[in-house]
């Protein structure tokens, strides 16, 4: 029974940790499917986390926070779009510039606005997306196994966590079942063909960046207003890069990307549970080593020992109309 509780707890934190990863990975997916490499996910997440926490703190409403988080992230996505599409600049460098800029700007503004050493004030529960109890969760809690799974595992997450999981079929539908999605995928594989068909490569890519910005904005807002209760310095802690790795591992497809995110989240949840626990044979693993686990896993996955990974053909290459 205790074992079952352990599994449930572990799965529960896996879902919670996975949410921002899934949203960021889908953002990266939309951008890369349209031919734009987005190393700046990390920065957009952090900026959205700060925007959401500040707005939620000032207005007291998590919804104002979410809107502001999305707005900030979309603006940065458009900046990256401007560099990548209109300026035909180096997309990797631009993404990194955004990451570094945000890493400095968020604590600078936080310090100027809230005078708390680069953080925002702790958000009260009214200003956060708190846990939602699904209907009948209390009623079925006593049903063996299924009841526990429903009431402990599936119920009791924040709205943004549910939104993250809902975003996967939504993005898949958009990519594979709509005309827009077909064009978006085409522009990442063969922009010349799209151009020849009389469709604007530039417009499509900007639209993809806006979608990526919205998804990343929700992801960052989830960090500071659902998982956490306020903005703290460097709170994205490499999650944007983990999301990129998950997207690559998921071969630029929504459902496999979801599974990859769940794997990363599981390892992260596991490392949290392993802290201070004495394991048979090994003994207690120092916390610094358990912290490394998600990062080491990323390197192993990227090493490509799990199959061939092929990026969209035109990803990272600026489109020149006058060739």
């Amino acid at each position, binding site marked *: 029974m205790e074992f079952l509780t352990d599994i449930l707890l572990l799965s529960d934190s896996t879902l919670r940790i996975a949410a921002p990863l899934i949203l960021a990975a889908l953002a990266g997916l939309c951008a890369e499917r349209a031919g734009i490499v987005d190393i700046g996910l990390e920065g957009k997440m952090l900026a959205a986390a700060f925007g959401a926490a500040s707005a939620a703190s000032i207005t007291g409403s998590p919804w104002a926070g979410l809107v502001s988080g999305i707005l900030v992230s979309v603006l940065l996505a458009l900046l990256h779009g401007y560099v990548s599409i209109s300026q*035909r600049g180096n997309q990797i460098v*631009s993404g990194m510039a955004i990451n570094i800029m*945000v890493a400095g700007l968020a604590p600078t503004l936080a310090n100027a606005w809230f005078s708390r050493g680069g953080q925002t004030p702790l958000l009260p529960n009214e200003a956060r997306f708190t846990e939602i109890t699904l209907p009948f969760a209390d009623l079925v809690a006593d049903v063996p196994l299924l009841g526990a799974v429903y009431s402990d595992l599936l119920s009791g997450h924040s709205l943004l966590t549910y939104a993250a999981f809902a975003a996967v079929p939504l993005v898949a539908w958009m990519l594979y079942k709509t005309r827009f999605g077909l064009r978006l995928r085409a522009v990442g594989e063969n922009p010349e063909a799209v151009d020849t068909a009389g469709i604007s490569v530039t417009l499509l890519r900007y639209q993809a960046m806006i979608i990526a910005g919205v998804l990343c904005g929700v992801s960052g807002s989830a960090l500071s207003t659902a998982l956490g209760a306020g903005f703290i310095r460097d709170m994205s802690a490499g999650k944007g890069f983990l999301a990129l790795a998950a997207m690559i591992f998921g071969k630029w497809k929504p459902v496999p990307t979801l599974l990859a995110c769940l794997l990363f989240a599981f390892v992260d949840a596991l490392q949290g549970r392993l802290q201070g626990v004495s394991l048979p044979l090994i003994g207690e693993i120092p916390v*610094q080593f358990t912290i490394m686990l998600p990062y080491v896993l990323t390197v192993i996955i990227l090493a490509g020992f799990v199959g061939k990974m092929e990026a969209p053909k035109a990803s990272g290459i600026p489109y020149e109309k006058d060739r």
Partner: protein
Amino acid sequence: MSAPTKMPGAVEAVLMPFLNILVALLVSGFVVWSLGEDPFFALSLLIEGAFGYEEAIGYTFYYATNFIFTGLAVSVAFHAGHFNIGGEGQAMLGGLGLTLAVFWLGNTAPLLSVLIAILGAAVFGAGWALIPAWLQAYRGSHIVITTIMFNFIASALLAYLLVGPLQRPGGQMPESSDFPDGVGLMQFHEVLAAFGVNFEQSPLNVSFLIALLAALAVWFMLTRTRFGYEMRVAGKNVHAAAYAGVSVPRVTVIALMMSGALAGMMGLNELLGEQLRLIGNFTLGYGFVGIAVAFMGRNHPLGIVLAAILFGVLYQGGAELAFEMPNITRDLIVVIQGLVILFAGAMPHLLRRPVAGLFARLRVKGAA
């Protein structure tokens, strides 16, 4: 992107990068203004803080030394067509190698200890770059993501060692014991005192000269050796390089290891020149500053030295600025870094059309 008009070489090499940096600094000034401070007063405080007195000048060049190493590291990788953002982790491991060498050799022969320590820094830095380099060269793993991951892993590893096996016996801080007496690099005021010149005490040390020598060596390697040529060809066009018989994976691995070695040598300045012990996270983001320095210096060793000095000014002056102006923290320097990377690195052609247009008009006037 093809230029509308050809411009004189000097304009390409000097004026354009200068204008890009000017835009970055203008935006930074706007940030200062929006924080409710006077950007011009901030600028004067910054310059006063960086050059106002001897100690300040010493600090300015002390910081610049770090940035020369990390800037060269980024640029060597960039010439080979790769974006090494793992300077931070490579510098940490370099510091570890240096520390292990110092404790291993002790102070029976201080000069030998120092030389081996320098070697240790370079070898450990290069070693930390090896795995991402190999994965990039032979498995196509994204170097940006792997090097970022190696930064996190290095930071955790150092944290473990400094509260575990390497921690000062009986100490509470994440730091090692002090280096044995006499094992360290001479500081500038000591060198100058030997010649009878008085200079206020500052952490500026011999590493600055080592950094300048490294810049010279990188210049020589890039422009005067066969390997440097192969590297630059591979960086410009992988297919052309492979067709010409260059082993691109081999060049990738060697270039990235050189890059790691340079980043690793940052520890000379911080640890062997000033701290005289290994401290956790001594790199303080200097590895990332290297990215901005490399782009600002247009990936030319001389440009990197100049850009590193400018960032030295920003760091030292910025510290004074943060002290004088309550709304400004040292995070502002990170913002400036990001803006420089954005304008000088990602959008080098932003002002190209207007400037080229201006030159074209001037030329027409001159001809008429």
